[in-house]
């Protein structure tokens, strides 16, 4: 009887795993077939106005890059505070708030940036888009740093201190180094996540059909454009959306795999 129940349950869970994997496989296959079908190398050479994606890809990267430049150092230093200096209720509150912020709906962050930047400056801009992405990234980096630092045994810090190093030196020379791989992986994953974000950009950066480097104007965004294109009635627009999705997915997966590769290499 026990053995029978055992068999049944195990079969059920294998089955559900197969169902779940089936769906996910279906999505990937669709994406690859449709994406590769519409993919052409000229997409990288032309801007959207000419039926290409060049400006969108570059725009997306610029916004994510600026977000990273702001969010990563701030997040890391904040994470260091939480794990190394913060004590008692204040640090705990910050930690909890940061976790909550990480799960805050991205569209709400978009709305926030809309209210504080887009309305006062009178229009959507690449700058506003970058800010909303930075806000999204900040808690992820904080969380990653905090968690990775917590994996560093306290003896390692004490050993540094016992050797006569001052605390910040111990943190920079030893603790961060010990957590380096984990933090880098975490940051890469955070970057992969924000580069695929659409919702906070919808009404902060919007998108643009033209190539621009002017951050004070509506800025080209790959994801927002995918949304727009997918909702166009013409087949050609949708095909372009699929191609863009394909490129976006490949990008995100590459960043992800890089992160994994680093971790694995280090563990060896």
């Amino acid at each position, binding site marked *: 009887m026990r053995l029978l129940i055992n068999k049944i349950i195990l079969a059920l869970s294998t089955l559900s795993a197969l169902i779940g994997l089936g769906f996910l496989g279906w999505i990937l296959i669709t994406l690859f077939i449709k994406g590769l079908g519409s993919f052409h190398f000229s997409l990288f050479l032309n801007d959207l106005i000419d039926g290409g994606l060049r400006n969108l890809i570059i725009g997306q990267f610029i916004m994510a890059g600026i977000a990273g430049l702001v969010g990563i150092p701030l997040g890391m230093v904040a994470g260091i505070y939480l794990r190394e200096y913060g*004590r008692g209720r204040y640090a705990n509150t910050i930690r909890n708030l940061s976790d909550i912020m990480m799960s805050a709906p991205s569209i709400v962050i978009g709305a926030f940036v809309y209210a504080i930047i887009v309305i006062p400056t009178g229009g959507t801009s690449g700058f506003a888009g970058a800010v909303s992405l930075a806000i999204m990234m900040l808690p992820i980096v904080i969380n990653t740093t905090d968690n990775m630092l917590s994996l560093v*045994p306290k*003896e*390692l*810090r*004490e*050993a*540094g*201190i*016992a*050797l*006569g*190093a*001052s*605390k910040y*030196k111990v943190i920079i*020379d*030893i603790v961060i*180094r*010990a957590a*380096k791989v984990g933090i880098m992986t975490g940051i890469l994953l955070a970057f992969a996540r924000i580069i695929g974000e659409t919702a906070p950009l919808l009404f902060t950066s919007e998108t643009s059909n033209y190539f621009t480097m002017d951050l004070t104007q509506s800025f080209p965004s790959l994801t927002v454009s995918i949304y727009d294109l997918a909702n166009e009635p013409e087949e050609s627009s949708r095909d372009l959306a699929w191609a863009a999705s394909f490129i976006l997915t490949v990008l995100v997966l590459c960043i992800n795999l890089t992160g994994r590769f680093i971790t694995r290499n280090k563990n060896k």
Partner: protein
Amino acid sequence: MVMSIEKFSFTYAGASAPSLKNINMEIAKNKITSLIGPSGCGKSTLLRSMNRIHDLYPGNKYDGKIKLLNEDSGKMENILDIKKENDFINLRQKVGMIFQKPTPFPMSIFDNIAYGLKIAGIKNKTEIADRVEQALKDGALYKEVHDRLNKSAMGLSGGQQQRLCIARAVAVKPEILLFDEPTSALDPISTAAIEELIVELKKDVSIAIVTHNMQQASRISVYTAFMYLGDLVEFDKTENIFLNPKEKQTEDYITGRFG
């Protein structure tokens, strides 16, 4: 005598009762002194007071005196008076520490040892290289690692890591080395190697070691302190503690009839 602990009490932050009560003992020069006692007796707490590593965490309370010999002036100075960051750093360079788990820094074997030297203000590259080599030899590790000094220290075995940590601590030429159960995470053979090393080290440095392995205390130390519930029950030559303990509590612990 390089350290003298007088009427020392210690209370952890937020604790209502002191964890150490009126401890009086000393660390003899170039000798090994061990601290034994059941878990929670305060032996680690006492050891960690000797270089004030407790001060990493705020709010702990000290009482009494812990005097450290100033080799230059020949005077005993109370380390509990230290307030300035700089003096803490000096203290910890004088009183090194080795922990239960090996704590190699995430850098190369060479850099692990050079790190302490650089902190101590040594900049001359040749001098650093020489002292790293010497430290590795002192740590009985040079033979095993001399061909991979630039490899990560994480790749060493547990016993080697611990010897690396000892070498690292020795490199800055401390006056006292504190060992906090240095072998309890190691197998018997690595343990034997570390013990041998510790005995070797006492030529140059005075040693205090916390161990929950009584046999270890008996094997290597000249003086032994038995602690129980925050009290120093008995402090005497090791042979007396193990052969003719004066206190019944000590005797019961030593003979295993404890608790």
